[in-house]
């Protein structure tokens, strides 16, 4: 395979952009972890570190003007990948007025109709029928869009996921199901929670084509997502990607992750990190050198710094906000 084939014929600019988007998620999440430690973010906070190639690889194959995205509660990466402003996301994590939900949603509950991101859902698996409903709406309106519905390996054992698979296949809905298999459902490893860990086969009884993908190699994710979206856009109904990945941090900030060895985590960090992998691949081709990456690091550092400044400057929501947004006032 030539490097151009491996890189899916993407331009240098596009390739560096993938790197930049992944790095933004990494640095944003590291900062979130720090702010949590400082007590500036509270409650549940689920970091996406280690899984960046999944969302950036899939999003690169979506049509940002037509398609919709939904996920569960490990959602900061998806929001940034949809183009939501890091300042608005961080301000929400900090419970501030400038957050995407005016401080009323928190880490697990953010939405942007403008960026076509439909949450941000806190009940494991609930986003799957909802995402199938987004696909139903795409088909009903005939707008040519598809719905990308993300879930974890833990959610893949929820009954409602299969209720959704059945209807999606029965009605040929334009939905891409992505199982982000990060090896653990909270603290329970896949071999302890799933009778079969071949999650890509979970749609097979419903006639949903599935494939397993290496989620630490963004080009593999992109290629699989390209096949999947082509299938869906041809009107052939849903498609399932099981993307194998790894979460470096605990399930949430309160999880010290004692259910796994430090060596296991280090093996990924050192030898199979999706961002390092991408950089290595790019440097192997003669079109890239170290100088291409330095400005990206600097830009992201600045972007995250600005997000923190924006969030710190944003006040807590006014007390009058307590009673707003419960119901849409009828005209």
């Amino acid at each position, binding site marked *: 395979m030539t490097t151009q084939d491996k890189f899916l014929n993407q331009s240098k600019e596009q390739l560096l952009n993938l790197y930049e988007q992944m790095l933004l998620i990494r640095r944003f999440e590291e900062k979130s972890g720090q702010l949590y430690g400082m007590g500036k973010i509270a409650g549940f906070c689920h970091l996406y570190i280690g899984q960046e190639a999944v969302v950036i690889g899939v999003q690169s194959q979506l049509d940002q003007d037509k398609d919709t995205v939904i996920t569960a509660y490990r959602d900061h990466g998806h929001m940034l990948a949809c183009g939501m402003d890091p300042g608005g996301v961080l301000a929400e994590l900090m419970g501030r007025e400038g957050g995407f939900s005016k401080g009323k*949603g928190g880490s697990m509950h953010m939405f942007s109709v403008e960026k076509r991101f439909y949450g941000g859902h806190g009940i494991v698996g609930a986003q799957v029928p909802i995402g199938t409903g987004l696909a139903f709406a795409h088909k009903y309106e005939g707008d040519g869009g598809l*719905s990308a519905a993300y879930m974890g390996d833990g959610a893949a054992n929820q009954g409602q996921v299969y209720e959704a698979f059945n*209807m999606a296949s029965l009605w040929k809905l334009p939905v891409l199901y992505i199982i982000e298999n990060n090896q653990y459902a909270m603290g329970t490893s896949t071999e302890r929670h799933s009778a079969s860990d071949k999650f890509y086969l979970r749609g097979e009884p419903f006639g949903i084509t599935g494939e397993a993908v290496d989620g630490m190699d963004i080009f593999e994710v992109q290629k699989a997502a390209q096949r999947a979206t082509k299938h869906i856009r041809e009107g052939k109904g849903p498609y399932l990607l099981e993307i194998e990945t790894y979460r470096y941090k605990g399930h949430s900030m309160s999880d010290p992750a004692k259910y796994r060895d430090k060596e296991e985590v280090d093996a990924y960090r050192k030898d199979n990190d999706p961002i390092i992998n991408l950089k290595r691949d790019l440097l192997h081709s003669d079109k890239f050198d170290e100088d291409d990456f330095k400005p990206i690091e600097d830009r992201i550092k600045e972007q995250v710094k600005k997000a923190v400044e924006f969030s710190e400057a944003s006040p807590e929501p006014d007390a009058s906000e307590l009673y707003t*947004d419960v119901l849409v006032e009828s005209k």
Partner: protein
Amino acid sequence: MTTLTIREALRDAMAEEMRRDEKVFVMGEEVAEYQGAYKVTQGLLQEFGAKRVIDTPITEHGFAGLAVGAAFRGLRPVVEFMTFNFAMQAIDHIINSAAKTLYMSGGQMGCPIVFRGPNGAASRVGAQHSQCYAAWYSHCPGLKVIAPYSAADAKGLLKAAIRDPNPVVFLENELIYGQSFDVPDGDDHILPIGKAAIAREGKDVTITAYSIMVGKALKAAEILAEQGIDAEVIDLRTIRPMDTETIIESVKKTNRIVATEEGWGQSGVASEISTVVQEQAFDYLDAPVTRVSAKDVPLPYAANLEKLALPQPEDIVKAVKSVCYK
């Protein structure tokens, strides 16, 4: 005015709103080809086609969630549950997904959806098919909860529910689907959500009721009238937001209230009314607020036991006489 059954009134409400707005669609078990398990969706498939009248698999949790997703994108689903007993499978989506998202999104994303179907006891169908969910749903901010009695109210309020930008739980009753009432003609009969109606004026005691219990309360009022007690019957029509003003005004006039419901008493709708009355009209009361509700047991199958378990007009009569000290 035209005489319609509640079943026909509900069907007409959906058909009129579907003609008016392409985004309205109906989904549920047996709503299309079978014409509705209780024939409430009769004729809709023929008029609107399979794109907008959708038979679902038996998969309440799944299709409720799917409909919520469609509503997030601006469609206006009318989800029929064959009975609200089955909606327990879907209650997570009704509350966590439909009712809370507007708030959680800081007002960005609403969920214009109607969950409708028969609620409460039917006839001899046993404990799992015979529960009233009014109190359950009315507990939750972010939802509107409607439980009409007459066909005119069923039509006017279902049309309002479909046009409402919020999630609405619309509780019907299987036993009265076939009852006939006068319904205003035309497709502009829409009623405000959140307004109770005085079903019968009276001066001696207030009886509150909703859905099938309105009929039982009216029957009780007739019996009481023969005994010289003039009861005012309030048809709540909407459980959330509750029209407490109408209740309080009535209590200020009658100084006595019996709150009825078909559901269980503990933490029920009548308990809520009792609290509101003692908070807002304590000084007007000449007797303790009294509740009439289902007996505190799962609904039995045997005919005699079922009748004993459900609140009957006689129970209301007895309660009214006790608050009138007669």
